């Protein structure tokens, strides 16, 4: 059969996926710089799990293995999960997450292009619900640690949960000043739940050097992802609609909340640069398969993600909520696509449609 057009010079799917993977590099480097070897171990583990899972399920489904692996989508899922999971997570937990993502969230629906949800986020949520403690146990920035695990120690901790000099992962979290430290969002929500005012937390934090260092490291990680995202936008691998609408709606929602009570609700800039915001905005919500496809639809899709994100972060019981809000809107995207169609050229006159009884 004829295959027009004969001159195709745009990105292919394989290249697209690969370039998105490449866009993650600045963020990955920043995470490695601030949080140590754990990130790299996660990445290596998750990528090999993802590729093996994809190969396995393709074999079971009787599909061409190498041909499909070449599209780099499994690699991308592995990378995203590797970056989203906390460092020094036990190896079998990431195994469960990745295998669930690839096999259940992706291939049981028919493979790349057919999955209604972002596989990486499904894997993440499965782990978050099943192992909430381990999954919220994010390490503080490396320079605050007394015990900085070396590569060998990190590997030992990941695989055996124990290493010489470090008896378990929570040990590491005891800082030089004897405090423990979670992610900034986690810290703030815990303090808020203890009845502190936001200004109190901030003034307290200002004296607390470790909080500043820790939150700065998160800001830098987000800036790195932002750079990677801008590079994707520049190459037109992703379009502006989803990132811009998410950020705009985050800013608007948090602005309204802070008008209500600026002592209880975080400001927009905090929301944008803490947690996994930039990773989610540019690399997760823009996943074409599970996002809305029409341009108008994408604006609504992004805006709703931004809104639910802030709402869950503020009122929900999880410190970060990107995975949840993305999955919620993934469910809605077919409906959004149905109602947000562009107006076709010359569509003033209604179209004659086949009768209902015809099949």
């Amino acid at each position, binding site marked *: 059969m004829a295959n027009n057009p004969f001159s195709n010079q745009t990105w292919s799917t394989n290249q697209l996926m690969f370039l998105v993977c490449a866009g993650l590099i600045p963020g990955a480097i920043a995470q490695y710089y601030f949080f140590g070897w754990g990130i790299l171990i996660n990445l290596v583990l998750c990528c090999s799990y993802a590729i093996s899972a994809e190969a396995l399920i393709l074999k079971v489904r009787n599909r061409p293995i190498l041909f499909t692996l070449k599209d780099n989508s499994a690699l991308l899922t592995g990378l995203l999960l590797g970056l989203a999971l906390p460092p020094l997570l036990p190896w079998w937990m990431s195994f469960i997450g990745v295998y669930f993502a690839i096999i259940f969230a992706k291939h049981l629906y028919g493979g790349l292009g057919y999955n209604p949800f972002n596989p990486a986020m499904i894997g993440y949520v499965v782990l978050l619900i099943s192992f909430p403690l381990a999954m919220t146990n994010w390490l503080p920035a490396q320079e605050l640690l007394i015990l900085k695990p070396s590569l060998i120690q990190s590997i030992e901790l990941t695989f055996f949960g124990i290493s010489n000099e470090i008896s378990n992962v929570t040990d590491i979290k005891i800082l030089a000043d004897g405090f423990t430290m979670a992610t900034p969002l986690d810290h703030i929500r815990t303090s808020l739940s203890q009845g502190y005012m936001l200004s109190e937390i901030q003034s307290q934090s200002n004296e607390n050097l470790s909080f500043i260092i820790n939150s700065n490291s998160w800001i830098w990680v987000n800036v790195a992802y932002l750079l990677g995202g801008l590079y994707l936008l520049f190459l037109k691998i992703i379009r502006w609609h989803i990132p811009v609408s998410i950020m705009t709606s985050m800013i608007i929602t948090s602005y309204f909340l802070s008008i209500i009570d600026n002592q209880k609700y975080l400001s927009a800039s905090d929301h944008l640069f803490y947690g996994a915001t930039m990773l989610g905005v540019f690399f997760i919500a823009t996943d074409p398969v599970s996002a809305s496809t029409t341009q108008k639809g994408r604006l609504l899709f992004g805006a709703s993600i931004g809104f639910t994100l802030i709402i869950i972060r503020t009122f929900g019981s999880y410190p970060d909520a990107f995975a949840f809000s993305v999955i919620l809107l993934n469910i809605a995207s077919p409906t959004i696509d149905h109602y947000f169609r562009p107006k*076709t050229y010359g569509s003033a006159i209604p179209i004659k449609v086949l009768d209902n009884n015809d099949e």
Partner: protein
Amino acid sequence: MKSLHNKFTSNAIFKFHGGVHPTENKLISNSQTSVKFESDNFFRVLVNQSSVKKFELPIEIIVTKGQKVIQGEALTSGDSSSDYFYVPVHSPCDGTVLDIECFSGDHISGLAETTIVIEAQKNHEKKSRIKSTPSVERANINWKNESAEYLVKKIRNAGIVGLGGATFPTHIKQYIPLKRDKQNPATLIINAMECEPYITCDDRLIREQAKSIIEGALIVSRIVNCDKIIFVIEDNKPEAIMSLQKVIKNESKISILIAPTKYPSGGEKQLIQIVTGKELTKHQLPKDLNILVQNVATLFAVYQAILFNRNLTERLVTITGDLVPDPRNYWIPFGTPISWIIKHLNISEKDLDIVIIGGPLMGQKICDFSIPTSKKVNCLIFNQTLVQNEIKDCIRCGECEIVCPIKLLPQQLYWFSKSEQWKPMQQLDLDACIECGACDYVCPSHIPLVDYFRFAKSEVKHLLNKESASEIAKQRFENREKRLIRIEQERKSKQEKITLDRQKASEDNSKDPEGKKAAILAALNRFKSKSQGES
């Protein structure tokens, strides 16, 4: 320098949605002057070379096997007695009709079509080689004094169809003159866009025949009675723009609109959108906006037909691609087999698997090289065998929607066509698709979307036909049922009447025994007389 730059940059105000910018590859063939193609000694002329196909009305062939024909002689009937939609085809050479047979035409499926095989006289070939461009003695005709009907008839008899590639009969477009309307001034838009990559035949034609094209445009504007003539041309053809500007200096009626280079700006709907900013609704034709769109090659053919009495037997064809030693534009007579072009232009056949007819985006791949050229073949691309892109699954990236010039959702149409859901496809306005191939071009998974849409369109058409047929059958069945009921009722009422009459009669008899006796007597008498007659 700046003024020169301004001279050739876009001055169009309106634009259309989407579009793509493929590599143009026009330089391969547009720097060489066009030459006459030295043709083979036999031609295979397709009987129907216009886009109008009516199977119920076969085209009348007016030559017979063995008949001698001269160059430009009509082979099929196209005068007022035959079907209004048909345009005749003409003999490309002096020669003899060898055969009339079915042969695979230039349709994508290689569908067999009726062709007339003509063998050329040997001496004629030498004569035609001398001329570089077609010219016959100018007829002594002042078209300004002729009636529009006469000119349209002449255009039809010359076999002119839209030479931009659509091959819609030109006379049908010109038959109804445009209205005198203050709001929408009657406009003749001349399509010189040539937005497809590789093709340069219109570009070359304008450069070489600008004066004739303008005269052709004036003839057409006389026919349809229009106020304005607008040449619309992409900004990638500065030489052509210059030669047009030179000629139209003193014509106040004519203007040039330079549009930015973007595919598919040469589509009729997109062209009208660029010029007027208006969209044609579903059932509208350009003439509803008081517009007539004509291609430059068509105008040149009109010019030749009116002023030189020349029937349309050849056209400028771009022969290009990396396998062609001398890529340029050739005047190729309709009916020349592609295999002869390959042979004659020394195109290395061993690297050649497919030839592309038309541009790379909307064109067709041809594997059978024996098929002849026709009025719609404006470009032949001979490229080395292309690497087939691997077709992957759709990742719903939505790039196809961004480039679609008519704002469809190709990606959703694709899903529906895969699952054969024709109804939602219609709701998504499948019929509006112009099959430009922009979505194919940007698809990262290399899905042949337009192929899916063509298939879906034909399926929908088939279903609609079936539906209307079943509607008719249903109507017929209902009518029959009604008729049967009516007949039944009539029969019943008749019977009732008879029984009533009988009852009445018997009642009368019982009331009147004399009458009964008389009746019996009469019957007996009748019987008697009958048996007597028999014996």
